[in-house]
């Protein structure tokens, strides 16, 4: 019992997830800086690795301003509710062994629910601050959400259909011989693009467009609320990449090495794949420029939804034809 509580709180639970969020933020800034010919964070810790921690602490120690028109209750409590979503979802991902901390038979549905919950919380959060910039941002946020959600869910469902399981654990276990990405490369691509829209990374940083609407829905937040909202975005980054690894890249599965105990090996494989997926997103987000909200909606509805439907049809044909059935 004590052991499980410690696992949930420290490793591979909450504290580990937050530390990974900081690491992802640092890697993101370093990669972007390198690609632009800069150095990036340098003096805070070795190579600036403590920079996200310094940012987080500084915001915690700052004054928190509440706009006079804002809905005080939602404005103060919604950042905490928003923070819960990726943190809880992370407990369904197997990190140090084939069994996740809090997995159950239909946990993929719980993850889909938490994605919708996060979008809902961020919408009321954005509306609660009641300024003209956040109102525009909310409209864009909701439109972007209804755009990317369908392809995102279709891509996740493709993996579930092929592996004949609605739990992340079952989907990972079914990939011991063949990774899902080899069967459904387009579903993986659609998932990554939709994930970037969910995380509001360029080219989909439309709801937080710096040059158009100040800081988007983050405009009115300061101090503690801002630090947690930023942390949530970073943890969401980790969770999105971890889900991609579990659904398409075989989780922590890989060739066995005799000298290394299985949990350590599982963890190492998982981390390597996680960082690779993260790196793919860092490079894409630095290389691409923002598109318009209409273009984003067209991309998702007119191109990516048919692509993911075609991918589902392909997978169904494979299953019916008895070719390449997952174990």
């Amino acid at each position: 019992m004590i052991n499980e509580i410690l696992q949930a709180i420290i490793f591979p639970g909450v504290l580990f997830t937050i530390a990974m969020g900081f690491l992802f933020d640092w890697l993101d800034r370093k990669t972007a800086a390198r690609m632009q010919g800069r150095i990036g964070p340098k003096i805070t810790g070795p190579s600036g690795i403590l920079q996200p921690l310094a940012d987080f602490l500084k915001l915690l120690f700052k004054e928190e301003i509440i706009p006079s028109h804002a809905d005080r209750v939602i404005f103060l409590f919604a950042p905490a509710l928003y923070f819960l979503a990726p943190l809880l979802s992370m407990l369904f991902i197997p990190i140090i062994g084939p069994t996740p901390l809090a997995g159950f038979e239909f946990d993929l549905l719980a993850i889909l629910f938490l994605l919708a919950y996060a979008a809902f919380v961020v919408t009321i959060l954005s509306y609660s601050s009641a300024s003209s910039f956040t109102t525009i941002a909310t409209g864009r946020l909701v439109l972007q959400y209804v755009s990317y959600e369908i392809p995102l869910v279709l891509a996740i469902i493709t993996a579930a259909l092929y592996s004949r399981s609605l739990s992340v654990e079952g989907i990972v276990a079914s990939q011991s011989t063949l990774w899902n990405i080899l069967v459904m490369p387009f579903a993986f691509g659609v998932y990554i693009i939709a994930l970037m829209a969910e995380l509001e990374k360029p080219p989909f940083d439309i709801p937080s467009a710096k040059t158009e609407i100040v800081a988007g829905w983050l405009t009115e937040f300061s101090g503690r609320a801002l630090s947690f909202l930023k942390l949530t975005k970073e943890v969401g980054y980790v969770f999105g990449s971890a889900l991609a690894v579990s659904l398409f890249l075989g989780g922590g599965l890989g060739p066995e090495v005799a000298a290394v105990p299985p949990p350590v090996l599982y963890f190492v494989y998982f981390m390597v794949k996680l960082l690779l997926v993260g790196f793919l997103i860092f490079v894409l987000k630095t290389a691409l420029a923002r598109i318009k909200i209409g273009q984003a909606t067209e991309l998702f509805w007119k191109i990516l939804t048919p692509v993911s439907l075609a991918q589902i049809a392909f997978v169904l044909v494979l299953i019916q034809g008895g070719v390449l059935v997952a174990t």
Partner: protein
Amino acid sequence: MLERLATWSRKRSPWVFHINASSCNGCDIELVASLTPLYDIERFGAILVPSPRHADVLIVTGTVNAQTKDRLRRVYEQVPEPKHVIALGACAAAGGVFKGCYNVGQGVQDVIPVDMFIPGCPPRPEAIMYGVLKLLGEVK
């Protein structure tokens, strides 16, 4: 202990909000130049934030005239404590070449308290970075 942690994080993460109080754009270009690959002020944790509510350091450029006075004060009040103000360039320091005009005062310090003046018309990016770092050295 907590105090030391707070000081450490404040020294390492100065987020800058830039307000153009009717500047000629000279200082603004030099400020943006300090973000470019040659100088890269992000090495010290400084980034340019889009909203004054996220900022720690307010950098004001330009001669503050009757039009921008109220707006400057309003933006200053939106920055959460602890906050610092840097007046960048000759105009922000004392009015510059526009000093004596009917609508120009004695610079930024007439309107809001200033922690650091960086003179020059415009100041070089090295001078801007030196000023920011010197200000950070005095952050308590």
